[in-house]
């Protein structure tokens, strides 16, 4: 088990390295205006070149990459070029982390509880009203573009439920709409997959045998069907985290939440390459940690994986 964890950790770090390096190099291919913003118009070619050299941007790419990683190792993500000129990026980001992390975690928690409950209910009432209604919801969330139904949520949430339309950290009511918005996709996702796995499980021979043993329905459901259906769900944890990140980028700007997602939209629009790079690094790290945890959870829950990858049968 430990060996397996270490192996997966190394794989995760390698994936992270590839993703971040790729983004870093792609950023270098962008037009150099991005490093100067409005000032670019007023600068001569000579000034631009001098500036670029000073920032080290004319060095060969591998030197730049090396410097970037050396900085990351020291906990230094560089300085912002445009967004807040010459301010260390870590300083800009730090106060925003709690908002993004907080909303993200709450959204995932809501998605998991509501989604799993919904999916379990659908599986147990397969083909009946609850199952049909759930399917409609899942299809709706998957088919209608995120931007569209999130606008609906904002619109009707504020007009019908009188919830605040913009985020204000001193007003708890204003937290509701963004948190719910962020979880809508996850709810559909979890419901869809747990329903599928439960329906699969219900048809398994060992479930029939568990019934034939005389176990009451509820015991069969909880001890055999649900437990077994939850195990493969672990692999979707990272996907749910990634989806939440994706959603948060849009939702944070929609509700003016001072988090990292809104910031990313901002700095991309303003072409602050250094900031984009730093945020991508953070978001990919979170995603990859999620993948790693998902795999680890699977291995913990499923004895067959432990044996295949770890020790070996006696």
């Amino acid at each position, binding site marked *: 088990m430990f060996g397996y964890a270490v192996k997966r950790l190394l794989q995760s770090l390698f994936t992270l390295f590839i993703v971040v390096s790729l983004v870093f190099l792609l950023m270098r291919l962008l037009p150099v205006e991005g490093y100067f913003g409005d000032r670019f118009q007023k600068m001569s070619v000579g000034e631009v070149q001098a500036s670029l050299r000073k920032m080290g941007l004319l060095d060969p790419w591998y030197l730049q990459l090396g410097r970037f990683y050396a900085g990351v190792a020291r906990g230094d993500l560089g300085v912002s070029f445009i967004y807040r000129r010459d301010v260390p990026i870590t300083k800009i980001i730090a106060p925003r982390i709690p908002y993004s992390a907080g909303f993200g975690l709450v959204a995932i928690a809501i998605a998991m509880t509501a989604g799993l409950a919904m999916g379990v209910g659908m599986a147990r009432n397969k083909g009946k009203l609850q199952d049909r209604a759930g399917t409609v919801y899942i299809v709706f969330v998957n088919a209608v573009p995120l931007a569209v139904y999130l606008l609906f949520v904002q619109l009707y949430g504020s007009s019908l439920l009188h919830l605040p339309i913009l985020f204000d950290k001193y007003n708890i009511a204003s937290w509701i709409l963004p948190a719910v918005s962020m979880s809508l996709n996850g709810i559909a996702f979890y419901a869809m997959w747990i329903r599928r796995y439960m329906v699969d499980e219900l048809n398994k*021979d*060992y479930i029939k*045998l568990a019934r*034939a043993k005389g176990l009451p329905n509820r015991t069969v459901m909880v*001890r055999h069907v649900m437990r077994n259906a939850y195990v493969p769900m672990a692999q979707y944890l990272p996907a749910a985290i990634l989806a939440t990140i994706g959603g948060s980028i849009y939702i944070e700007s929609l509700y003016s939440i001072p988090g990292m997602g809104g910031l990313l939209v901002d700095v991309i629009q303003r072409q602050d390459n250094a900031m984009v790079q730093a945020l991508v690094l953070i978001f990919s790290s979170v995603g990859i940690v999620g993948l790693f945890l998902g795999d680890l959870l699977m291995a913990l829950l499923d*004895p*067959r994986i432990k044996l295949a990858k770890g020790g070996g049968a006696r």
Partner: protein
Amino acid sequence: MTASPAPKAILEVRDLVIKFSLRGRLLSAVRGASLSLSEGETLAIVGESGSGKSVLTKSFIGMLDQNGRVDAGNILFEGADLATFRREEDWLPIRGKKIAMVFQDPMTSLNPLLTVGRQIREVIELHRGLVGKKAEIATVEMLDRVGIIDPEARADQYPHEYSGGMRQRAVIAMAMACRPRVLICDEPTTALDVTIQAQILGLIKALQRDFGFTTIYITHDLGVVANVADKVAVMYAGKIVEIGTTEDIFYDARHPYTWALLSSLPQLGVKGRPLYSISGTPPNLFKEIKGDAFAPRNPRALKIDFEREPPMFEVSPTHRAATWLLDPRAPRVDPPESIRAMRESLRGEII
């Protein structure tokens, strides 16, 4: 092997009718089956695929699929009529406790995510009310009893660490854990290789000797039947068309379907001749069946076979068959030559 002369009936099925509703239509899977089992007896149910063997026995533990129900008839067991049971709670004292079932495929019969010991223990906890250490000891005892070596360590292992034969032993341990009165084995060895098959059958026999339960085997393998059964019931299209002791069926079969079934046995085929197979297909169970269900496939069918359903005729006190051939007015129809030849070759060989 002779039927033990224990006359006390433990399970009695009378004119059982089981129907399934399928997309608005009704399918009659069991159409008036009757049989009676004495304590300690071993019954084998044979018949081709789809004849209703599994459905019939599943109804004894209330495990019919959602869309099926007992439509008429009785299943008498220990003073209760199981055919009237509707609610889940009715079944709890019977299912797995008094009547246990072992399924065909041991590879898929165990939950892969729970240890084997845990899966046996849950039966013991449920039906014998043991908990903690006592339940654990009983679990290990049970594994030992079904011939699992080093049962203590094995109890903590997962099914994927067991071989196929061991898994079937574990499944049997589960079924036996609460000392049932009736054990139903639905093709218990079909998925296993031949040597393991023999071991499993031997194990069930030994357990039966010790605990004295009644066994119902469902099987396609007449070799198994000859080896283990006291009594054989032949099913066709949801009916028991012939029932008798193993000798009655092998030496003195009366129903044309039983003849056909016996003729198609690979074990009993004559060397050098192509294996006999029953021509035609079983009747459509969605439709009302007129007369003898086997008549359309029976080259020796009488006119009346197409018109009126034959009742059960008594051949001997142990042997009954539903065929007009047994009516005193029927013309004399001899079994096919292959059956007569087989009877000769059988003498003293299999039984």
